[in-house]
């Protein structure tokens, strides 16, 4: 069913089963964390979680747009690094503002290249985005000679670390982006096109859905948001690295799917992704709190993702 988000946004979102499930699982996990683990009951821990979830969340919102039209973007990890590294590099010579602008511009460019490949060269999204991602990663290595710069840019620093009324700014930014995405995907014409394309390419073509514009918007927005996340991460750590985006590749897709969006497209809700990103961040924090070794942590996280998928986000048979 195509869920919409009118005035009764909350209600509708609830009716969309799987997105609501994601929130349910999130709440239960959170409650369990507070009850059974140490350090999850403080305001500061909530702050920290929402703040760190924002990095993943911003990327996952973009990923949702792409997945909803039955695409996928495997270049996000490289784009995160790209925007941060380029921004750090440029701001060293031309100041922070220039760095931010150039960082975002190159991110967007990658998205547009992805769209061109998917659209005109008809390369499957998975292959196309993986290829651009690899190319970007390689060129970063060349560009930085293997040693990316660190940078302290005021705007990014406060965006990543400051708070308004006790709420981390990064989280506010994430929510603002989510609001726009909710409008775009669930209330605007483009959203209808995205859902239509996600359900059937052929029928969409014969209905006059603008395949080109929609593809550019989805892949463009996805890459741009990955770029934004890269900048916020740069503000958070004040250094850029070539691998800083790596964890977000699969986690962003997992957030989308755990949020109840069909990996085949055409079904789901952006708000589910918010729950998915929070849930994954929470799980990661829990596993860290239990002092598991890095390897065991990754294994457990992977198993948990599979278990959750089986529990409520499995593909339906048609």
């Amino acid at each position, binding site marked *: *069913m*195509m869920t*919409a988000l*009118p005035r009764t946004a909350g209600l509708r979102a609830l009716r969309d089963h799987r997105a609501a499930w994601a929130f349910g699982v999130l709440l239960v996990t959170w409650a369990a964390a507070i009850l059974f683990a140490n350090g999850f009951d403080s305001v500061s821990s909530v702050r920290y979680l929402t703040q760190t979830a924002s990095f993943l969340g911003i990327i996952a919102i973009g990923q949702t747009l792409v997945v909803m039209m039955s695409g996928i973007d495997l270049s996000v990890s490289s784009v995160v690094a790209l925007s941060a590294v380029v921004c750090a590099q440029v701001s060293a010579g031309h100041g922070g503002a220039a760095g931010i602008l150039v960082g975002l511009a190159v991110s967007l460019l990658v998205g547009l290249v992805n769209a061109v490949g998917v659209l005109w060269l008809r390369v499957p999204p998975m292959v196309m985005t993986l290829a651009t991602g690899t190319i970007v990663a390689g060129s970063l290595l060349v560009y930085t000679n293997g040693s990316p710069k660190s940078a302290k840019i005021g705007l990014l620093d406060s965006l990543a670390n400051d708070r308004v009324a006790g709420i981390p700014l990064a989280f506010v930014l994430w929510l603002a982006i989510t609001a726009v995405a909710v*409008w775009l995907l669930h*209330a*605007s*014409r*483009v*959203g*209808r*096109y995205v*859902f*239509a394309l996600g*359900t*059937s390419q*052929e*029928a*969409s*073509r*014969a*209905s*006059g*859905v*603008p395949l080109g514009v929609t593809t550019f918007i989805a892949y463009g927005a996805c890459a741009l948001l990955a770029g934004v996340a890269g900048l916020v991460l740069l503000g958070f750590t004040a250094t850029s690295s070539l691998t800083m985006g790596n964890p977000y590749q699969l986690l962003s897709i997992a957030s989308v799917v755990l949020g109840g969006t069909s990996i085949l497209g*055409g*079904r789901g809700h952006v708000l589910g992704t918010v729950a998915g990103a929070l849930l994954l961040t929470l799980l990661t924090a829990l596993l860290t709190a239990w002092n598991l070794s890095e390897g065991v942590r990754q294994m457990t996280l992977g198993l948990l993702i599979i278990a959750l998928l089986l529990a409520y986000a499995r593909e339906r048979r*048609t």
Partner: protein
Amino acid sequence: MALLTVDRVSKSFAGNRVLHEVSFDVRAGEVLALVGENGAGKSTVLSLITGMQAPDAGELRLDGEPLRAWSPLRARAAGISSVHQELSLNPHQTVAENVFLGQWPARRGLVLGRDLARRARPLLERVGLDVDPRTRAGRLSLGQQQLVELAKALVCAPRLLILDEATSALDDDQVQAVFRVVRELRAAGSSVVTVSHRMAELFAISDRLTVLKDGAVMATRDRAGTDHDDIVRLMIGRELSDLFPAKAAPTKAATAPALRARGLTVPGGCAGVDLELTPGRILGLGGLQGQGQRAVLRALFGLARHGGEIELAGRPAKLSSPREAIRARIAYVPEDRKVEGLHVAQSVRANLALTNLDTVAPARRLTTVDRNAEAGLVADLIDRMRIKAASPSQEARRLSGGNQQKVALARWLPSEPRVLLLAEPTRGIDVGTKREIYHLLRRLADDGVAVLVTSGDTMELVGLCDEVAVMYEGAVVERLAGGDLTEERLVRASVNPAVTHA
């Protein structure tokens, strides 16, 4: 002795009662027709027999034995095979592989392609299908695919064959082939249950007719004891007068064509087709199935690459994508509504709104969808076309076939197209609705729309169209209008173009 007894079965979907205490039986060696409007519940009853679904109440008995834990697998093992309304071939596999799907003859676990083709051949011959068993199923026309489905159903020599609109995509010749199979089965003592909206066919082949209306059995009649009007009355609960509307008045001062095509050519489809679509007139594309009719429509809607010249309202135009065609106010209702005509996995609402987002989500609202306008538009269309849906949020695939077709057509109406292209507009549609659609098309034409229709149903072309262009192997071989437009002339022109043409 009854082979199969359906005893007071009921079935609901999400509180929506679809079958109510339906009872009938199928005797050994008879052909029983199930008749009813779209959404009457025919396919649903059949799905109980084939084990696709289970009844909520009531019982089915085969040879007097109640069916327990019934499933498609068991039904097959019991000698029940079926051809479904929906095509289910795997387009990427060969015809032979599809025919033997699931029961491939294997030697030491190896499926032998040559063997498969050899064994498929007699079955294909039996259903009158002259194709190489090694062709991919996806390359066949819809009608040919339907015949492959039939061949597939014959693999296990059924005792009960179920044909749910198995002839909807077939032309007259192909229908005769199906009849031949049905008669053979009957002669061998097997039974056939058939569903079709082509009344003439039902009368030609069935021994008894059971009429369903709104999920209840109205009556079961012997063929000898009933006629067309009687059945229609039972089906829709009233008389059905003038199936076809009056035709356009012959030439009110030559109107300029809305669309003119010269030498329209689609590689592998049609060649050198000249057409003039005039406001107020309904032009038909006749001929045997798969003679390029589909290619013409797809070219005119920008879905198929084509050569030749196209003029819109006198001005040369290029139609290289559906968007351009839509901008030129051309609308297209494709024959395969499940693939191109509808987003079957989306709601009726979403389907109806998608083609009208310019009005429902106007630029002045920053393209935000206006829910009220959308609801209004959807309610209006559902009302106007009498679409039978549980609610606007019902998924399109859950609609009965006829109602899907109505949605596929309805979605274009608000944009007031100038040219309307329809492929098989009444395939799978009940007589009452057919009449509605014929009258609607005529009304649209009277309002100045130029209509182009393809149809495998000769009677329909003759009854509905002002002129019919008969196609053969991709070219228009004959144009019939006025007094020349008779079923006989049409059939003759279709099957024997060389003679009539000479």
